[in-house]
């Protein structure tokens, strides 16, 4: 570079830097992404490859017994496994009922509060608690409440003059108890997201609609719902993905019982893999669940244009 003026601060930055600096700046994009991409590739690729191989084999719990190739046998077993079918049905029922209830309650409360209660910070603080504390603590708390002998719920039944129930121990009520605990835990999530969505709505379209003579009902359907759609989509996606993998609550409250009434897919895979030690079959179920959930979420995200 050419001669510079005798200005002390100008003498420093001429030149083109060290070779390392140039190399780092040129490749900074990939250098900054690499650790994350490598770790995530490890987390996804290795398990997928492992499961693809295990799923077509019969893997014995005894490491000395060689693996036996069974082709699609493990997948065929899934078609005729009644316990798996129950687990799938339970998972779907739980997801649909729990998420629907959480959504309706959360949205309803958000609409009501957004309009009539201005100072919400205190309320928000309280609502943090159920969804932030460890799920195990949530499960424990509801186990205390559902406890048939000294639990609070049966005390309430007694006060209302109704017969006491076994709750989580009752085939007909067990799923409802799981759903109730989940609704308690996650309705605040929907509520807070909807409230944030409502708070970000622009006021001008509503003023225009009022001037145009639209009723509150029309304003809700013509303005609020379209504006909230992205937030609703995100809230539902996250809740559905979470509900499909339900494990903690059932593991503590019912362990899948009674008589499989609350056995979910996660719990069933756990049992097949670690209680029956049937790794090949567990891998086959896992693969199907993996493709189903990733497929569903991919479809949902693309359809709702959430990742842009």
């Amino acid at each position: 570079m050419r001669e510079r003026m005798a200005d002390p601060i100008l003498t420093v930055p001429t030149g083109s830097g060290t070779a390392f600096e140039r190399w780092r700046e040129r490749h900074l994009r990939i250098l900054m992404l690499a650790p994350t991409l490598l770790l995530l590739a490890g987390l996804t690729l290795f398990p997928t490859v492992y499961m693809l191989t295990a799923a077509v084999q019969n893997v014995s719990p005894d490491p000395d017994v060689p693996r036996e190739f069974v082709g699609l046998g493990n997948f065929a077993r899934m078609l005729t496994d009644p316990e798996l079918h129950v687990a799938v049905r339970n998972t779907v029922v739980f997801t649909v009922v729990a998420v629907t209830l959480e959504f309706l309650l959360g949205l309803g409360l958000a609409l009501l509060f957004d309009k009539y209660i201005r100072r919400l910070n205190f309320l928000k603080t309280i609502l943090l608690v159920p969804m932030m504390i460890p799920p195990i603590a949530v499960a424990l708390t509801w186990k205390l409440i559902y406890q048939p002998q000294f639990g609070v719920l049966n005390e309430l039944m007694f006060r209302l003059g109704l017969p006491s129930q076994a709750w989580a121990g009752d085939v007909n009520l067990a799923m409802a108890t799981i759903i109730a605990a989940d609704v308690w835990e996650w309705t605040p999530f929907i509520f807070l997201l909807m409230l944030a969505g409502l708070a970000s709505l622009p006021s001008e379209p509503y003023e225009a609609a009022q001037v145009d003579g639209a009723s509150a009902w029309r304003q809700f359907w013509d303005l609020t719902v379209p504006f909230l759609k992205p937030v609703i989509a995100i809230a539902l996606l996250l809740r559905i993905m979470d509900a499909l993998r339900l494990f903690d609550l059932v593991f503590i409250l019912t362990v899948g019982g009674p008589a499989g009434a609350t056995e979910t897919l996660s719990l069933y895979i756990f049992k097949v893999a670690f209680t029956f030690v049937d790794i090949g079959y567990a891998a086959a179920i896992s693969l199907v669940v993996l493709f189903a959930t990733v497929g569903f979420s991919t479809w949902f995200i693309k359809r709702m244009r959430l990742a842009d």
Partner: protein
Amino acid sequence: MATRAWHRTREAIFRMLAYAVMAIALFITTFPVYWLATNSFKLDIDIFAVPPVWFEFSPTLKHYEAAFIGQPFLIYALNSLIIAVATTIVSLIFGTMAGYALARFHYPGRWRYQISFWILSTRMMPPIVTIIPLFIFFNFFNLLNTRLAVVVAYTAFNLPFVTWMMKSYFQDLPPELEEAAMVDGDTRWGAFVRVALPLARPGIVATAIFSLILAWNEFLLALILTQTDRSMTLPVGISGRVTQYTTHWGEISAAGFLASLPIIIFALIVQRHLVRGMSFGAVKG
């Protein structure tokens, strides 16, 4: 046509209704936590009392003593803390860089979208479907029942969240600030470290706290990867005592409440960022 007076009356009724609903919602939300907390301070005779003892009981720390001195819950809590902090540090270092790279650099075609989407999709993977290979993997390297294994697994599971959160925070910052720094004599890396990072500090703190909470609360992976007292986390320790035939309600209530307490405090700190945190940065609260 509706008169003004009628309209006002209707509004007043709705307002009263809203307050009533809020009171009920608050009661339903708080009562279970109150019940867990009070049970941890009750003598066994009060825990098992029928009808339940609502308010008037003589508080005791007996269960805390039993859980944290008589039982290894203190070790579990320490394991949980070490694992959560280590996970948070590693995933924040990696995720902040990746989030910045996704927020700032040019990409050919739709690569920015594709990479971001792929990172997010790994988060959509249910943990249960990866635990078998992870179990085999850590077993192979003799890392089962070590905190290191849990930290590695948690870091991988928290990374998509951290990356997306930080991407959303960096996108909120005007890129001209880093550009000004570069023209003023800094490198891109220097502008990231000296300009972008200090400006994103509130976001980094919030993301770190979320990451701590996620790692502290996680149950399923820890259940598979830690079976000994040396590495077992608090949720696994608690669950192990719940499912036994004789449940020590006082002790596990004490452990459960104490596991929840730091989380409640943390949650209060990140309250302002909560909605963004819960939605992977997609909804700005």
